[in-house]
């Protein structure tokens, strides 16, 4: 019989530090521990049962429920919109500076083009040095139409032009790459809201860096509050990142991780698999 007391507290504390070491946010960890405490206390261990295994199973269930909330398949969702004639499917990528939005835009373009869809890209980062050149270079390589203007142009206007162009050509998908921005900058978040209003996207993807610690929560929560997003991309999972940031983002917003970036090549983008992340965390 598992009882409340010093032994259980010491045990839960060790588990707490282990979860924090995998970059799971303090908020998510404390929720999971609360669930664990609730489900463990008063429960009887079957004869010969291994407490460690019971604990691992309990944690896994709690993490699974966080990752599976509202989960959707990226390619299936695009397919559904297009088969229903709801096109061009407009996808907008958002997030703070340097998380991998532009590279993810290129990866998505590659993935969808390979499935036979026609894609148009909008270079809506009209602010950062070299941003337009970066996306144009990717789209040239992929032989995908990229709508852009001079640096300093209006980001919403570029997105709108890309959508008009896509409609005129009967294209299937429009990818709107936006500039990175810190979520605590009101004027930049207002600009993003404007792009969102003008483009009325089918899907908004928040691109989060797998390397991020607790700030992943702040970023995701604020982007979700100001814009709402449909799913997140967890980029740079091929690095030292444990991937806890994925749990932090899902826990903070109730929105699922749907895609994971595993490198700098166009092929390094996959549908996110919650089981895969859990295996990573537990090994």
């Amino acid at each position, binding site marked *: 019989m598992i009882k409340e007391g010093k032994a259980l507290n010491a045990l839960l504390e060790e588990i707490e530090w282990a979860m924090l070491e995998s970059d799971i946010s303090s908020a998510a960890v404390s929720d999971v521990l609360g669930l664990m405490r609730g489900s463990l206390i008063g429960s009887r261990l079957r004869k010969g049962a291994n407490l460690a295994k019971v604990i691992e199973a309990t944690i896994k269930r709690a993490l699974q429920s966080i990752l599976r909330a509202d989960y959707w398949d990226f390619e299936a969702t695009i397919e559904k919109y297009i088969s229903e004639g709801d096109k061009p499917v407009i996808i907008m990528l958002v997030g703070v500076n340097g998380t*991998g939005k532009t590279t993810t835009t290129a990866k998505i373009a590659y993935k969808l083009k390979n499935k036979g869809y026609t894609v148009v890209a909008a270079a809506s980062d009209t602010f950062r040095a*070299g941003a337009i*050149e970066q996306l144009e270079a990717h789209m040239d390589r992929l032989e995908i139409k990229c709508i852009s203007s001079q640096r300093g142009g209006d980001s919403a206007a570029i997105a709108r032009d890309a959508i008009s162009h896509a409609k005129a050509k009967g294209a299937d998908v429009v990818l709107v790459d936006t500039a990175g921005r810190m979520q605590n900058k009101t004027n930049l978040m207002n600009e993003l809201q404007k792009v969102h209003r003008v483009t009325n996207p089918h899907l908004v993807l928040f691109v989060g860096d797998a390397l991020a610690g607790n700030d992943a929560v702040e970023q995701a929560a604020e982007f979700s509050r100001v814009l709402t997003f449909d799913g997140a991309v967890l980029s740079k999972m091929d690095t030292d990142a444990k991937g806890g940031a994925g749990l932090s983002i899902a826990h903070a917003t109730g929105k699922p991780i749907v895609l994971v970036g595993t490198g700098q090549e166009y092929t390094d983008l996959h549908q996110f698999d919650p089981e895969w992340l859990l295996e990573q965390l537990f090994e």
Partner: protein
Amino acid sequence: GLRKGIFSALSKIKGKRKLDEDELQDMIRSLRRALQEADFNVRQTKELTERLAMKMKEEEIRPGITLQTHAMNILYTELVRLLGPPKEIPPRGQTIMMVGLYGQGKTTTTAKLANWWSTKMQANVAVIEADVHRPGAFSQLSQLLEGTKVSVFGDPESKDAVDIVRRGIEKHSNVDILIIDTAGRHQLDEELVVELKDMSNLVNANERILVIDAQVGQAAGPVAASFNDLVDVTGVIVTKLDGTARGGGALSAVAATGSPILFTGEGENVKDLEKFESDRFISRLLG
């Protein structure tokens, strides 16, 4: 914020002048939790709070100071100690190599540093864009330094980073400061590790700066250690502190490389660079 967390941790010992073991452990536990939220390395947090506990037990509290204030002072002193003494880079005779993970702010910081010394110290500065992997890198660096006196060397057509560096050094052998921007990389990418080693051997930079994003969490320590193994890091620059990230990971980078934080990145523009000040950094960390 962390300060609130710390004060609530310390409020458990408020008004007391002596702690018993249980109370001390309770305070330490809440303190560890608060530090964790600022992305302190889990192990470093444990050591720091254990040291704090030890000092709380053995140090004499000055009269008129609460246990709370005493603990806060010890913590502050420990953090300053962890950050180490400041270091100033003289504006002459420098060859600087910028390294770090993907998207941390290396290119932007290269431009900021070049502009800093060029404008504040009237130094003759040149930069080399040695990133041959990311499309638009040369345009990015060139645009950032438009309107400045800094020379920008690169070759968008080349796939040979070492060769670009060689040619750049030849062309700008007489500058006061030469800064080399490299591609983002990770120690698991063998090809990029070899490229960095080759560049590093050729350049023999006297400053090897690790650029790290303030949002990086528990990976900061291991990543900094791996870059230290590769190039022997001599300084750290923490970027994107104008966001909400606390930068606890930066302390792990300092510990792993044994080198000080030199500057901080406070925004996307070339002027958004500040000399590192431990007071400001710690109060923001504790904020």
